[in-house]
Every structure is written in structure tokens, then in C-alpha cells.
């Protein structure tokens, strides 16, 4: 459009005008969209998220309008992606760790107030039996009171009409009175009907044969307390626990999310039903990660040494076969092992039974389940170590081995006196990375055992094969209480471990940028 209004410039400048138009247009659309999102979030009182997108949009505008920040335009999308999906969730999780955010305290205070104030109850005192009449214009509800009868305007129930005014009427309404059978057929439609009297009171169906007045369940006072109109009890908002609470300690649900300080962390240390499982899982997580690194390294180094040996032929074949476990998608091979280890139908138990008459229950005995997990993880992980070691072994000068052979050294002393000392330094950062990866090896546990068998006496779901990550996942997403706060507190503890590991790693690998 714009190019046509220009006074015949050359094709090239037309092209650049078009490019510029496209660029600024796209940017303006993006900014407009995010402003809409920010306003919508702000209106819903989601201040954290509104702030997040505000910061993101503001930095985008700054980077793309300021010529001095030209280089930053190239890195902005990637950095924004990491900020939005790695760093923000990380900080938000740490924040949740200090709240009681859970299935029972999911909403904000305002949403809880709104929810409670919109509740209604049906009066016992103002109650009418009713009859239903069918006319050409629709159905008429005829309410029979002690003092007067009320009749509604005709409603097309089938067409979705649900409200109608009611007026006093002394005689019988027009139309054909319906029997109980028809009323039962129409009961779902009738349940949605609201009748409004002349003085503005609302009536709704109370039972199959009666209508009753609707009252708001709670009324709010100036000091923020709510009184239950039905029972007369008064509830005060308790911002320590996030519940409306009455004088005798009764609480209303739902509750809202409040800051509870270090309570989640204290719970992990002091509550025996959480402390016990937590420390058991912590110890298992550490031993699992250490054992995995040792096993995979030992196996990988051994195989790499063999493949590196120039007397061995057919290296290409061996290499391809040996890295196969690495090439098969992990989620498939883990599930394959889950099936193979199955106690009743699994092929591994069939073989064991045929050979030794054994039928171990891999999934219900903690020691066996852990053995199985380590076996599977070694199978999954040794090819990576083997590939790493093969690369590092190539860098070792061959004449070192020749010299040691002249001195009559065997393979074992070669390994400990030449190979290991030379590769351990470049290998260390990779081993730490592998440790950190396995410390958080969620997929393996989630797909293989799901944490089973369970730890007895734990108040949250906790299993003897759970790692800390799968433990937090289960607290947050599989428990009925969905205690996000507690899960986030444990996740924060894991963040510290991972952060420390990656700092050490950065130091060791001496990265130059």
C-alpha cells in the first residue's frame, strides 16, 4: 500500500520501504498484542504475570528502537525465551516455596471473596408447592402459597428460557396441568428456572414439588468479616493461614494463597512424616547419581579402551552395536524395560525362572527395584561415557604405552598410571554434568517405577525409588492435596544443589568467552 503512494522511487528503495514497513508493522502488532495481554492480566490482579510481560515488552521495544543496542537485537529472542521459560519459572518456584499455594489455597483473596459472596441458599420459611401448566406460549409455573398464589409468565423451557416474573393470581391459570411424569421429564430444565417476584425476590426450585426463595449465603461487614445468613456464624479473614475463620475455629473453603514464610522448609525438617521420607529419598538420590556415574564410567572406559586397541578388528561394527542403547529414544527403552521386568509376564523373569527357578518381584521389593533402576540406567548411560572416553583416549600419546610395555606393565597398571591420570582432568566437568543430570533423572523414575514401592508412614506420596525431582512432582501433581508450596520449597533446595554443581563445573572447565 505504502509503496504505491511514493513518487516513483527505484525498485530497490521500494523494496526497502516495504521491508521497513513490514518490520515496524510486525513490531507494532507484537507490542499491541502484549499490551493487551498485560492490561488483561493487570485487570485480573495477576500482578506478577503482568509485570513479567511488561518487562519483556519494554526490553523488546528498547532493544529494537535503540541503534546502540544493535547487537542485542540478535540475542534478544533467545535471551527472552530463556528468561520467560527458565529464569522466571525458577524464581516463581522459589516464591511459591514461601506460600501455602495448594489445592485448598489456590485462589487469591479477592477471588475467594467473590466466590463466597456469590453463594446462595434456599430459604426454609418461604416455600411454595407448584403445579406446571402447558400452554401454546410455553410452560407456566403456578406457585401455591399459604396466603396467595403466584403465577409465572409462560416460558419456552426447551428453548432455554430460564427466568420469568411471577404475579399474584387468584384463579387457575390457563393451559393444561401436567402430571408428575412430565415434571420428572422436565426436571433438569426446571432446576435452572429463576422466578422473580414483584418486590425483586428470587425463587428457585428446591425439590421436585416445591420452589423456595433464594438468599445470599454470606453478607459482608465493613471490617471484612462475613456472616453466614443461614447459621448466623461470623467468619473473620485470617491472613496468616489464608482462610475465613469463625470464633470457634471453623474455616470456610476455598482458602486463598498467603505468604507463610519458612513454614514449608520447617515442615521438611520438623514434621516426622515428611522428614523421614525426605532424608531417605535424599540419600537414595545421591547414591543413585554417584553409582550411575561410576558404573557408566567404568563400563564406558573399559569398552572405549577395547575399541581403541589397535589389535581389535571390526571396530565400526562394535561401535555401532555398542551405542545402540543411546540411539533408541529413552522413553521407549525405559518402557521396554518396564515390560521386560514385569513380575508375571516379563521376559527377564521367564529367563530367570527357567535358569534358576527365581521369580523376583522387581517392582515391590525396594532393594530389587533399586537394582533394576541402576541396571537400566547403566544400560542407558554407558554409551555416552564410552563416546566421551574414546575422544579423550585419542589424545593420549601412544609412546607412553609403548614405554610402559617395555617396562613390562600390564593393562591394569596402564589404566591407573597412564590413562586415568591423563583423562580425569578433562573428564571431570563431564562427570559433574552427568551427576547433575542423573540427580534430576525424572524421566527414568517416572516411566519405570513411578517411585514405587511406597514408603510407609509418609504423609505425602513418597516412594523408595523416588528421586527428589520425582518426589516434588508427585507432591505437586499426583497427590490429592496438590501441595505446590511444599513441592516448590523442595525444588528450591534442589536448585541450590544444581546451582552449586554448575558453578563448580564452570570453574573446572575453565570456559573462555
Amino acid at each position, binding site marked *: 500500500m505504502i509503496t504505491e503512494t511514493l513518487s516513483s522511487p527505484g525498485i530497490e528503495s521500494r523494496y526497502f520501504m516495504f521491508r521497513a514497513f513490514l518490520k515496524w508493522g510486525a513490531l507494532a502488532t507484537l507490542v499491541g498484542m502484549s499490551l*493487551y*495481554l498485560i492490561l*488483561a*492480566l493487570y485487570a485480573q490482579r*495477576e500482578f506478577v504475570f503482568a509485570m513479567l510481560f511488561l518487562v519483556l515488552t519494554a526490553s523488546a521495544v528498547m532493544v529494537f528502537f535503540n541503534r546502540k*543496542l*544493535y*547487537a542485542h537485537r*540478535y*540475542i534478544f*529472542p*533467545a535471551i527472552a*525465551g*530463556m528468561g520467560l*521459560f527458565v529464569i*522466571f*519459572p525458577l524464581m*516463581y*518456584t522459589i516464591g*511459591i516455596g514461601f506460600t501455602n499455594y495448594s489445592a485448598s489455597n489456590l485462589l487469591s483473596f479477592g477471588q475467594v471473596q467473590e466466590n463466597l459472596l456469590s453463594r446462595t441458599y434456599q430459604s426454609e420459611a418461604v416455600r411454595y408447592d407448584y403445579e406446571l401448566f402447558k400452554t401454546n406460549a410455553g410452560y407456566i409455573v403456578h406457585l401455591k402459597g399459604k396466603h396467595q398464589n403466584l403465577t409465572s409468565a409462560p416460558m419456552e423451557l426447551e428453548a432455554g428460557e430460564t427466568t420469568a416474573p411471577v404475579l399474584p393470581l387468584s384463579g387457575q391459570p390457563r393451559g393444561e396441568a401436567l402430571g408428575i411424569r412430565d415434571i420428572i421429564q422436565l426436571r433438569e430444565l426446571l432446576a435452572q428456572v429463576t422466578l422473580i417476584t414483584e418486590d425483586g425476590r428470587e425463587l428457585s426450585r428446591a425439590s421436585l414439588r416445591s420452589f423456595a426463595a433464594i438468599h445470599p449465603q454470606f453478607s459482608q461487614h465493613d471490617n471484612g468479616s462475613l456472616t453466614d445468613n443461614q447459621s448466623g456464624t461470623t467468619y473473620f479473614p485470617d491472613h496468616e493461614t489464608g482462610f475465613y475463620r469463625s470464633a470457634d475455629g471453623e474455616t470456610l473453603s476455598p482458602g486463598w494463597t498467603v505468604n507463610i514464610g519458612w513454614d514449608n522448609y520447617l515442615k521438611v525438617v520438623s514434621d516426622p512424616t515428611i522428614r523421614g521420607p525426605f532424608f531417605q529419598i535424599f540419600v537414595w538420590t545421591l547414591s543413585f547419581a554417584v553409582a550411575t556415574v561410576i558404573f557408566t564410567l567404568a563400563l564406558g572406559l573399559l569398552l572405549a579402551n*577395547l575399541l581403541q*586397541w*589397535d*589389535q*581389535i578388528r571390526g571396530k565400526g561394527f*562394535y561401535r555401532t*552395536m*555398542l551405542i*545402540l542403547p543411546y*540411539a533408541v*529414544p529413552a*522413553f*521407549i*527403552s525405559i*518402557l*521396554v*524395560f*518396564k*515390560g*521386560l521386568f*514385569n513380575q508375571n*509376564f516379563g*521376559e527377564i523373569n521367564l529367563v530367570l525362572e527357567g535358569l534358576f527357578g527365581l521369580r523376583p518381584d522387581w517392582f515391590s521389593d525396594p532393594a530389587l527395584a533399586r537394582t533394576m533402576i541402576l541396571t537400566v540406567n547403566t*544400560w542407558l548411560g554407558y554409551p555416552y561415557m564410552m563416546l566421551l572416553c574414546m575422544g579423550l583416549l585419542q589424545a593420549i600419546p601412544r609412546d607412553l604405552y*609403548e614405554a610402559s*610395555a617395555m617396562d613390562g606393565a600390564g*593393562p591394569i597398571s596402564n589404566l591407573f598410571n597412564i590413562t586415568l591420570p591423563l583423562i580425569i582432568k578433562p573428564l571431570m566437568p563431564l562427570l559433574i*554434568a552427568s551427576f*547433575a543430570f542423573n540427580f534430576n533423572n*525424572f524421566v527414568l523414575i517416572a516411566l519405570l517405577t513411578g517411585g514405587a514401592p511406597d514408603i510407609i508412614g509418609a504423609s505425602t506420596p513418597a516412594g523408595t525409588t523416588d528421586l527428589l*525431582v520425582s518426589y*516434588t512432582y508427585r507432591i505437586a*501433581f499426583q497427590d490429592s492435596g496438590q501441595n505446590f508450596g511444599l513441592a516448590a520449597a523442595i*525444588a528450591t533446595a534442589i536448585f541450590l544443589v*544444581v*546451582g552449586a554443581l*554448575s558453578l563448580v563445573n564452570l570453574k573446572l*572447565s575453565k*570456559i573462555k*568467552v
Partner: protein
Amino acid sequence: MAMVQPRSTKYRVLASHLGMLAFIAIVLFPLLMVISISFRSGNFASGSLLPENPSLEHWYLALGLPYTGEDGITTQPPFPVLLWLWNSIKVAVVSSVLILALSTTSAYAFARMRFAGKGAVLKSMLIFQMFPPVLSLVALYALFDQIGNHVSWLGLNTHGAVIVASLGGMALHIWTIKGYFDSIDRSLEEAAIVDGATTWQAFRYILLPLSVPILVVVFILAFIMTIMEYPMASVLLVDTDKLTLAVGAQQYLYEQNYLWGDFAAAAVLSGLPITIIFLYCQKWIVGGLTAGGVKG
């Protein structure tokens, strides 16, 4: 060839061959077993590695076709495996393209430009890369819940959310590509800029064509990583017909509904292409994993 050889060498070579073959047999046992199981009839059948009377029952079901057995009973496919595979591929292709585009441009800036905070950003990217997303799932869930209230195609239970969430894992790829760019002589681009090319043109028309191999590797790496992503997809996706393969596959092996044979066929069907791609590209992938990520 070493000049000095101990006498026992011959036996040690033989022992190594035998040892490795035995080890390979153990390692391959689960994979061969699954292929064999996929041809057995029924979900609880046992038998030898070579099925005595092979049946294509599970393969029909895995391919989404109803199967009529000899007894005349027709079985419907239990899960839409091909749909899951398609979902996985769709999500993986879109997010790999996005990851490739964004990490290439970032890597270019990191490799060629000078700007404030470059070293700090690169280092902190490496640190944050080590935090697994599974730990901040609660926050990611809340984030997409909020976004979804206003932008429906990015909310919970959409593929858009899974694609966008995968953009968080770009640091590794940026490092890989940056390592490659660092190894390319920059004099060509400098010559082009002297001749009047803009920075963008030097990047687009000179550096990019020279870097096609590493871009292919990063694309494949990103593709495989997204296909295998489990934790985020398992929380973000709910409906059966929206699931990716990594999330859906486990439904075959529930205690109450144990479909071992059907799983085997589905696993072979979906795992084989990925395995072949990986084996074909292993040289570059391994190079990328070890060089880019860690050595810097």
C-alpha cells in the same frame, strides 16, 4: 602398531572379542525381544526369540487398523499411535525450526560482535541450562494457565505451549553454533563489510552458507531432544488426541490395562525411525554434544 608385544596378546584379543560379543548380546537382548514380542499374538504370550507362529495383530493395531483374529473377534486399536507420532513430529519440527533460527542469530552476535555483558550472559546461560524444567513445572503450569486465559492457542493442553516452552533450552545450541562460528575465519565477512554490506548481509550471505553442516546437526539435535521431552509435555497436555508419543506411550503399560504386545509394535514403529536418524548422524551429534556444550 606397538613395537613391543607381550606373548599373551593373541589370547587377550580373542578374549576381548568374545567379551564384547557377549556384552553386545546382553545389551541387544531387550531390543530384539521387543521386536519379537511385537509379532506374537496376544498381550501375554511368551515364547522364544523367534516367534513360532508370527502374527501381525499388533502391527495392524499400531498402524491404526482394526484387526480381526482367527476367532473372528475384531479388536479396535487401543490408542492413536500414529496421531501421537504425528503430534510429536509436528511439535518437534516447529520448535526445532524456531530454535535453529533464534540460536543461529544469537550465536552470530556472540561470536562476532562486541557488546556489554557478553561474557556474563554466555556464562549464565551455561549455568541456567543445568536447571531441569521438571523442577519449575508448577510455575510453567501457572504461566501457561495465565497466558491461555487470553491467548487460547498458547494455553494449557495446546501444542503451542509445548513448542514455546521448548525455546527455554536454547543455550546448549547457541554454544554449539558459536563454537563453529568461532572456527570460521572472519576475514571474508570483514571484506564484505568493507565493500558495503550490512552486518546482517554479511551474516546471511557469507557466514550462513558456510555453516550449513552445523545447522543440520543442531536441527537434528533439537528435533531429537523435543521428541524425547517428557516432563513438560506430560503436564501441559491432557487430551488423548493431543498427547505426544513420549507422554502417550506409557499408557500401554498401566497395571489395569497391560497391553505388552501392542506396546511392542508401537514402540518399534515409532522408535525405529528416530534410532536410524540418530545412528546416521551419530558422528556429528556426538561432536556437538561434547565440543559445543562443554569445551566452549
